């Protein structure tokens, strides 16, 4: 099937099956799971994933084509986005066959929800500085510590956990990756209110949580290389919008603004032209990355440039929209009030803009690395977090 045909079929399926809106009877997570099962059974979940583990075995081109169609809809896939975009691909790349057989298909079909447990209060951009400890105890590990910025943890069945297993070696060399059971009694999930006033994220506390060694992903003390795999998938999935629902209802989009602001003013027109230019420029860049992938050119760290541009566009357009709409945009339940409060998130989550620029500089342009003072110091002797 050629790509145009694929897109037509996808559009037809979405028109038939996509829910009309967020409203509806019953538990929204249960409804999301029901939709995800239908999405999987129709062949639109795990489009690029290997057939052996339950995927469709197609290319990024099909995935991005589907994502492009999805933008016209609002799909209830948010609770699955971490599993589909980050933890699932990590298991496919780095898990054991037993782990792939156990976890991947239920993840793709929405039967189990995943979260990612990397960031900590003292380890954000410097995520290799995590302090959550995992200590070996026979055939199991015992985990204590705290994670933060964890999306969908309140619904999650499983989490991908980065923990410190050796403090006597430099920080990158003493980390191990695990799959942790989020239903374990030692796991406490607490909602974290962000600047929008809502709790999109959680804080997670681990109190003597046991993990069987068979749920270790990768070798002991090789967790950093597994984390790098996850982060790469994260950036690609953010820039492609995979599993992120749709943008149909974005109140700061060009189409929304042209309806709500006075375009007889030439200054307003020019601002909207700027928004159009930036939106098209990024959309075409994403399409080119998709076509390159299809032609066998892996975008790699160039996905970080796309993520950086998306972050800047997100903030620019919410900022522009509030300036164009004026005083009414920041009172009551105006959707732009929420949009401008959420807008900084894209520049922070999944790696800050500064980290994205470091990645583009180091891995795309191959610029010399910044001198590091933390590379050869045993973790226990290293300064981390906020130091007075």
């Amino acid at each position, binding site marked *: 099937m050629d790509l145009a045909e694929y897109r037509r079929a996808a559009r037809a399926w979405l028109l038939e099956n996509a829910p009309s809106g967020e409203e509806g009877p019953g538990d929204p997570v249960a409804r999301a799971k029901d939709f995800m099962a239908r999405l999987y059974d129709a062949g639109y979940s795990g489009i690029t994933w290997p057939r052996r583990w339950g995927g469709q075995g197609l290319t990024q081109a099909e995935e991005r084509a589907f994502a492009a169609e999805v933008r016209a809809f609002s799909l209830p896939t948010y609770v699955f986005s971490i599993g589909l975009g980050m933890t699932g691909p990590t298991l496919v790349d780095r898990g054991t066959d037993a782990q792939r057989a156990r976890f991947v298909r239920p993840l793709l079909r929405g039967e189990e929800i995943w979260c990612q447990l990397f960031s900590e209060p003292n380890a954000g951009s410097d995520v290799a500085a995590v302090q959550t400890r995992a200590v070996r105890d026979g055939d199991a590990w015992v985990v204590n510590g705290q994670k933060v910025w964890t999306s969908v943890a309140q619904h999650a069945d499983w989490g991908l956990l980065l923990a410190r297993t050796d403090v006597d070696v430099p920080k990158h060399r003493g980390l191990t990756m695990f799959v942790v059971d989020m239903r374990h009694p030692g796991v406490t999930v607490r909602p974290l209110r962000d600047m929008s006033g809502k709790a999109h994220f959680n804080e997670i506390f681990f109190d003597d949580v046991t993990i069987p060694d068979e749920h270790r992903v990768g070798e002991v003390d090789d967790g950093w290389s597994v984390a790098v795999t996850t982060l790469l998938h994260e950036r690609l999935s953010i820039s492609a919008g995979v599993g992120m629902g749709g943008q149909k209802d974005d109140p700061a989009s060009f189409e929304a603004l*042209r309806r709500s602001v006075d*375009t007889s003013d030439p200054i307003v*027109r*020019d601002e*909207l*032209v*700027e928004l*159009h*230019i930036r939106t*098209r*420029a*990024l959309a*075409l*860049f994403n*399409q*080119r990355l998709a*076509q*390159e992938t299809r*032609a066998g*050119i892996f975008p790699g760290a*160039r996905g970080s*440039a*796309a993520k*950086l*541009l998306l972050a800047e566009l997100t903030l620019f357009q919410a900022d522009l929209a509030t300036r164009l709409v004026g005083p009414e945009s920041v009172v009551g339940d105006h959707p732009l009030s929420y949009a401008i409060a959420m807008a900084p998130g894209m520049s922070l989550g999944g790696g800050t803009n*500064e980290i*994205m*620029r*470091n990645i*583009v*500089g*180091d891995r*795309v*342009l*191959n*610029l*010399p*690395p*910044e*001198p590091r003072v933390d590379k050869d110091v045993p973790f226990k002797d290293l300064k981390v977090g906020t130091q007075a």
Partner: protein
Amino acid sequence: MKLVLDDDQRGLRDAVRSFLGAASPLPKVREGYDPGVYARFNGELGASGLIVPEEHGGAGAGFAELAVLLEETGAALLPGPFLATVFATIALTRMPPDKELLGGVAEGRTVATLALPPSQAVAARVRGEGAAVTGTLERVLGGAEASVLLVPARAEDGTEDGAEDGAEDGVVMTAVDLTGPGVTRTPLETLDLTRGQAGVTLDGARGRVLGPAPDVADLLCVALAAEQLGVMRAALDAIVAYAKVRVAFGRYIGSYQGVKHRLADMHAKLEQAESIVRYAAWAADEAPDELPGAAALAQAYVGRACFEVARDHLLLHGGIGFTWEHDAHLYYKRAKADEVLLGPPRVHRARLARLLEL
């Protein structure tokens, strides 16, 4: 929509890049237009004939290939009237075929140029296919080097008007012999040292009527954007290379985030610019409905991005970038000259606003 080069297009790119690297390196660029290099470029590589139809001696290629070629001539800052000839050729391929001119361009015998929009039409006394052309053009790209000028002309009273040629408003495209009588050319001082312009005064100059004047403004926008993409890529490559060897305070300057982050932003602009140029070239070849929007987008985004990258590439060089002997100002000046070549940049933004029905 095709945004990625195929094997043939990559082959073309590599051939042009290696030819220009050897025949027209930067030290030579400073010496200006070299007809000998042009003869080889057009002869060995068939550069000037790339989009000329095969029956007239060209390669019959489309804008996707032309964009690849212009990206390389831009990156090399190839001096002289190449872009001018490409502009003229674009117009020639949108009119009833003129065997002599198309053949001359394809063989590299004829250096042509085009009066750029929105220049006023000049006046012409038309007698059959011949015309005596009168008017003043203040800035003609490659006007001193070209032998033929394509200029829209309005038939004067008392002459056969252009309606006979199918021109609705009586404006016909004329090909004026710039080497003949009645032509005064005044080379201009140009900011961009690598590309000349000239004032051209025509006083009953010898010309021929080619047919109704085509509207090629969108196609010129796309062609220029391809050159700008090359200029910006070469400028970024130059400063990235320098950031890897220049040391300050005991470190390579590229290791400082103050430098690295700006280079990353420049790279992000380049990625978007390339995507837009590929899209606009595809639209020129395959999607006429999308061409106006794509062409205006190309100039609005790529024209600006090219200057910004060339500017930042100069600044990040530090003081050496401000010297005459360093090449940074060559890119900077080309980028600025290109940004305003087809009119003040706001015209492209205004065009987008109209197309978006704002």
